């Protein structure tokens, strides 16, 4: 009883918890600076910003330091991927007295009141492990990119509402299967319980894996519609990138294996991938797709040979 009443007692002053905002930069200083500007306008005051420079080969660090001289920047020697870079930042924050970590992609733009909304929901209960905002397209500010992630019947993650016009159809706080890693708030308790991002993923699907681990540990993953973040539409940017094809294919297979989603979903995906490989190899229409086809083949081989983490060819 003691603990419960203590948590409820009205006399206790309500303090805003310290939030660690983690931005990962890799060869895109202009995006990072735009993101940091949007964070600076935030209505929430009690936060720390950390920029992890993931082994950029340009003058990113100098440019960011010129614009924001007071921001802490950690430089890694090489590209550690989304997982490695963020894990370094999380380790840094765990040493400090922070209550929540806000992971945000460096190409995203945050609405000024987002953090307040996310925290107001997350702080209601210690079981609320993750809180994620509504993600809209930067190119078209009323188009939804993600209102949380659901697993479809084939056990593939699907962004709810992707490509739809946002007319308030998802404006309800709801529990979702996972959240997009492009912007999400995690509580310290969750990280201490389930650990950090899984380095085997390197890039893509690590956020979904994290949310699943969080749910398995008895925490909740909540979507908060009043918090908004704008992000470039990945469907335009990544359509033909061999790097994206490689990591998405391999990691979705790895994800299914790790969380025991059943052999059928794996077999179905492998069959679809093989169909794509064959089509890209023999149809004259796709003769310019050889790089993408090789990436797909690499992904399947690496899955079978259990080669996780970074692949030197796609770094």
């Amino acid at each position, binding site marked *: 009883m003691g603990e*419960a009443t203590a*948590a409820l007692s009205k006399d206790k002053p309500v303090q805003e918890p310290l939030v660690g905002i983690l931005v990962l930069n890799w060869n895109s200083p202009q995006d990072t600076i735009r993101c940091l500007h949007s964070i600076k306008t935030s209505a929430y005051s009690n936060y720390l910003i950390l920029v992890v420079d993931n082994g950029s080969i340009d003058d990113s660090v100098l440019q960011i330091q010129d614009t924001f001289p007071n921001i802490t920047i950690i430089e890694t020697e090489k590209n550690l991927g989304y997982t490695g870079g963020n894990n370094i930042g999380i380790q840094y924050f765990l040493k400090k007295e922070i209550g929540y970590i806000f992971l945000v992609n460096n190409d995203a733009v945050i609405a000024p009141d987002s953090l307040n909304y996310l925290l107001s929901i997350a702080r209601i*209960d210690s*079981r609320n492990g993750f809180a994620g905002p509504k993600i809209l397209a930067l190119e078209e500010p009323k188009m939804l990119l993600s209102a949380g992630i659901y697993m479809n019947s084939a056990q593939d993650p699907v962004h709810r509402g992707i490509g739809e016009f946002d007319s308030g159809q998802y404006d*309800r706080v709801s529990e979702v299967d996972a959240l997009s890693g492009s912007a999400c708030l995690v509580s310290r308790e969750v990280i201490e319980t389930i650990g950090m991002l899984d380095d085997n993923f390197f890039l893509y699907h690590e956020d979904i894996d994290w949310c699943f681990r969080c749910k*398995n*540990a*008895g925490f909740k993953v909540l979507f908060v519609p009043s918090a908004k973040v704008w992000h470039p539409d990945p469907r335009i940017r990544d359509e033909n990138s061999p790097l994206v094809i490689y990591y998405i294919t391999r990691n979705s297979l790895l994800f299914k294996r790790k969380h025991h989603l059943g052999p059928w979903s794996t077999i179905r995906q492998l069959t679809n991938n093989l169909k794509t490989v064959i089509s890209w190899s023999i149809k004259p229409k796709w003769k310019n797709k050889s790089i993408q086809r090789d990436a797909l083949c690499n992904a399947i081989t690496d899955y079978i040979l259990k080669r996780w983490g970074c692949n030197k060819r796609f770094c």
Partner: protein
Amino acid sequence: MLSVSVIIPTYNRHKQLLHTLKALTLQDYFMDLIEIIVVDDGSSSPLGGLVNQDWPFNIRVEVQNHQGGTNAKNNGARLASGKVLFFLDDDIEVSPNYISSLAELHNTYNDVIVSGNLIPTSTNKNSPFGRIYSQNNQQDKQKQRITNINYLDILGGFFTIKKGHFFDLGELSGVGSGWPNWEDVIFSYKAYQNGFEFLRCWYATGYHYDHSLSNISTCARRWERASKSAVLLFHKYPDLQSQIPMLTDKTPIDWDLDSPSLVIRKGVRTVVSTPSITYLMEALASAFERWYPSPRLLRPLYRWITGSYMYRGFHQGLRSYGRFGSE
């Protein structure tokens, strides 16, 4: 819009109750239509501090002497002012759309008992049993659907019914005093006989932070107790004998009525449930948990062990409460 009353019986689980109430503050239903009735079944320390909080909904606490959960639910239902009764155990945390989805169903249909999708969740992160058991239920394929279910799938701590119907059916009544007294099966059986429909709304979820999921032996012991008191249930309602699937192959062989395949199943169950084999299986399970915690191997082992405990419990019950059906 229907007004709803959420009835939460509780006994000495203040910390978990706080989580349950906090999950209810996220509901996307009109907060002034929600009434929470916490029935304190004689906890050793008072609940006072919980009510004095700034909850967005109306909340009241009713204290009774220690009479068991069934009475607590009945008392709560009598005090309720809402049109729909939501029975909720104090260790279940519901998703934000829980009340709105189920209230909508009650608005559409009459003569129904509606249940959400209950997901067992283990708070013990170190136990492979809890992890495997929760993983098993994490993904379901019927996520966006509403389906008809069997009346036996209604759980006493997680169902909703219109208030009028609840009293028409004559409240909850069990076979014993404490848990397990099968009040949910008896109640839904009465409802079934009165032509009620049973619905499950798969997207309205509740997370059951069940303390018995911490390891296989606590879980199996629970089923043992439930099976033991099932004998009392069968004494009172002989029609239910063949209905409960978890006990079909645990009852003694009836040579006149049972089909040959059922006789074989019961025979196999008798053999595999002997104490020595159960002990061996438990040792095997703990060895696997330690060295090779593969869900594919452990899941059938867990089923086997729980099955054996149910068999043992049921036969204990037969010895202490007497056989049935022989006269």
